[in-house]
């Protein structure tokens, strides 16, 4: 699933490790999500939504739904 995680992280001057700490996951998980290799669970997506103060749809772009 495509997402804007890398852009949002860069806008806030956060490293993958910073974001991983904020979301209580490993840096590998953040990297895999950014590369679209792994889709996060709904609770993790909500955590991201809360952290960036954006809706889940604004962070993730599900092409398959279109």
């Amino acid at each position: 699933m495509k997402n804007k995680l890398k852009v949002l992280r860069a806008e806030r001057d956060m490293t993958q490790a910073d974001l991983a700490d904020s979301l209580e996951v490993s840096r590998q998980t953040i990297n895999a999500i950014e590369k679209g290799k792994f889709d996060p669970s709904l609770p993790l997506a909500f955590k991201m939504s809360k952290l960036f103060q954006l809706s889940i749809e604004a962070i993730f772009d599900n092409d398959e739904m279109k």
Partner: protein
Amino acid sequence: MESENVTKVIKNLALWTLLWLVSLALATFGPKFIWQENTTWSIVAIVINTAIGAGFIWAQMKRMTVLDELQKKIQLDAMGIALGVGIVGGMSYSVMDIANVISGDAEIGFLVMLISVSYMIALAVGKMRYA
């Protein structure tokens, strides 16, 4: 992720693994080299080994709880492959023994080794896939 908690859980697992291996060695080699085939001591050693084994399983389950969702997925995939390889490979090995295709009896150690190696390979592949 609380790295201190993760480190503590992993150290705990390492300790239980070590204890289990030592107790397994004692239960395996004790009858021949320490207590000269005394059945009572053998039963005590086997009971201790099984009890420590339960602790080892508990420590492994505890470790799963500190993993994040991707790490859990990698572990689950690796365990699934190891289980499948263990069942299919183990049954083939057993049939080979029954059909006398292999010389000697089938040893449980080979099955443990097969499961361990397939688990480690699947774990490495999973880690590389999501790197």
